[in-house]
């Protein structure tokens, strides 16, 4: 794992990234550093890509139970460019607006990518949140019924995006917990 060509980021690029994302200047430079350490040697940082495995093993994502979903949502064709990483960090940053976070949370939790969070998705989410080896079947079924009963407003046994958004709006924890610092420096 060598290093990319060590180009300093141009001032205009930095300004552009600051305008297009929610990240602060320091955060962008930190991510730039981290990216440079990981990407294959000999390439300019704007053309280099990282694999999903490399991104999954970043310290910020290493123990996250949803890291594969995060990588899948933010990557293009299974590869991460520098700008994809910036997008990911921007959505998870502290300054991002709530609606953006809710939108991406919905996409991350939608395991089968059919546009709804249905029972199958819920099952997977709950299994990942608890230690799956000693989760009883009853607890799982109970939880799923509870969740659907509370949030499924139109009674179709699935959560659409607006129902998900409605549920998230009632949870003040969401903004606090849906946050990752990608600092490595």
């Amino acid at each position, binding site marked *: 794992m060598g290093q990319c060509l060590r180009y300093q980021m141009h001032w205009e690029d930095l300004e552009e990234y600051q305008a297009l994302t929610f990240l602060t200047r320091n955060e962008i430079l930190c991510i730039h550093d981290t990216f440079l350490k990981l990407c294959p040697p000999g390439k300019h940082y704007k053309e280099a890509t990282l694999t999903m495995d490399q991104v999954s093993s970043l310290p910020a994502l290493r123990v996250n139970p949803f890291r594969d979903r995060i990588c899948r949502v933010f990557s293009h064709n299974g590869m991460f460019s520098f700008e994809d990483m910036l997008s990911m960090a921007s959505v998870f940053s502290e300054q991002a607006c709530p609606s953006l976070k809710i939108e991406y949370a919905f996409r991350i939790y939608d395991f089968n990518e059919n546009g709804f969070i249905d029972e199958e998705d819920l099952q997977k989410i709950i299994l990942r949140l608890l230690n799956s080896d000693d989760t009883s079947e009853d607890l799982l079924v109970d939880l799923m019924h509870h969740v659907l009963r509370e949030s499924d407003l139109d009674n179709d046994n699935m959560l659409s995006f607006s129902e998900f958004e409605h549920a998230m709006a009632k949870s*003040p924890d969401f903004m606090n917990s849906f946050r990752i610092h990608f600092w490595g420096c």
Partner: protein
Amino acid sequence: MMDKRLIWQLREPAGTQTLRWQRWQRRRQTVERRLREAAQRLARGLGLWEGALYEIGGLFGTGIQSYFTFLRFLLLLNLLSLLPTASFVLLPLAWLSPPDPGPALNLTLQCPGSSQSQTGVLKFHNQVWHVLTGRALTNTYLFYGAYQVGPESSSAYSIRLAYLLSPLACLLLCFCGTLQRMVKGLPQKTLLGQDYKVPLSSKVFSSWDFCIRVQEAATIKKHEIRNEFKVELEEGRHFQLMQQQTRTQRVCHLLSYLRVNVLIGLLVVGAISAIFWATKYSQDNKEESLFLLLQYLPPGVIALVNFLGPLLFTFLVQLENYPPNTEVNLTLIWCVVLKLASLGMFFFSLGQTILCIGRDKTSCESYGYNACDYQCWENSVGEELYKLSIFNFLLTVAFAFLVTLPRRLLVDRFSGRFWAWLDREEFLVPKNVLDIVAAQTVTWMGLFYCPLLPLLSSVFLFLTFYIKKYTLLKNSRASSRPFRASSSTFFFQLVLLLGLLLAVVPLGYVVSSVHSSLDCGLFTNYSAPWQVVPELVALGLPPLGQRALHYLGSHAFSFPLLIMLSLVLTVCISQTQANARAIHRLRKQLMWQVQEKWHLVEDLSRLLPEPGPRDSVESPASRASRPRSFCPGFPCPGSPGPRDLRPGSSVVDALGLRSPCAGPRGTPASTHRVLFPSGPEL
């Protein structure tokens, strides 16, 4: 990112000549953004301890991190409280250096009992002891007594007014700061009726702390989440049972509820009377030979009461078998009541000995305060609060190094059933928060008597951060009961506000109605410190200004103001109720519309012929649900293409509506697809 860039470029196509004002505007926007970032960093405490907070959050989650964030917030509040005092009182004092007011008054006092010789007191010449009790610092600007100025005049800067108004300004600033932070911690949208607590569904989606980065912390977090879900489900079941109870059962339940609360209430009353007697005893026997012990008796009793109280409450509440959340909340509320009531009682008993509140007024008749025992009573009060502050801090240090550390060493060294049961100490967030809130209340109570007390508190808070961090990282284990960061933020601020109110009440009373000491301090010639204000108004302001101020203070102004505020409140409440009704109606409408939609889909699928697979037409489900971006100018990077609907009409299955042509679930290719017809087909 490509989409965003495209949109950005569409807005300002490259190559066009940018006018000068456009370039200036862009530069202004960058400057604004930088300033905003800097202001945010400043508001969060100059980036103080960011690295440490990040580490703690990663290791223990946001619940425990919220305690440390709260500590940093209190440090900032204290430093902010210093600003009015330093800039409006100390700086002018140092600059103007007012002349000496003249020799002290010779008071003729008829004091009961012989004047005890003070030699017993001064036997203990230890320098450290003098600092700990505040005697060494009596004549410094730390205490009220050292401030002295000449009589008021209309042209000179009135230090008296500044000294009087700066505690009030500090308290107002702290109130605004706490209120603002409290409002930020509330849920983003309004809370509806019975959905008062966070529903389990949103807990499922927001319970994972994405900032955790260590494997052990992840395991602990998973245990926490599992416990929390179990507790929630149990609460739900308990609630269902409660709904089905008969009336007699409900009355029985209520009685048992009352029983435990009355019992705990009696304990609290007992504890408070103990504090009352301790303070009285300490003040009455100031010249005893047990001088050392008695000086610190009131803080000692307060600490003991606040240590034993929570243990007893937990024990009593657990006897009753309530659902877990109720147990925790009840214990917490009583702990808060005990803590604040003990501080209130301490202050009241001080007031009783010094100002004869609530007892016979013979010794206070001549001068309005107990002049025989206290030459400078504000200094005495200031000293008591100073001692309480120092004692609290020393107690924190002692607990950290003399209890938690040995416990950890012993538990690590020995292995046996007892040591395994004892285990390391749990880091309990509510208990730690109550401690620092109580310390902050003491600081606020002492603002008038001891203007530099916030400086002392800031130093203590700074050191407490490092001590607690060390304790957490090395000597504790995470508690098994999770403490959610959001509800805790709101709760901490609420308790802080209660402490602030508790501090404001005595201050208001003292400032407006109590006679100051006659031979020390700034208000020697006034019947109450607030009398400076009318005097200055009469001296300094023009007649028009005086009349305006009189009007503002009179009834003719306050009654209309009150009526107007009530009107505004009524309007807000009725608007809220109307909104709640509208939301209820809209939810019903939503359900009907979706049912209608599925009926239509069913009808159509019956009427339409079997179509072949079409790639370009999407189902209503996937098209309707593609999340749209709500942030202007920031669409989703790499917008997804049309999603394939899974083969099989599982969507239709879910409702139990099977169209007659649908194949069995799971078979690919030949199954019937639910398609929404495009225009020309209809």
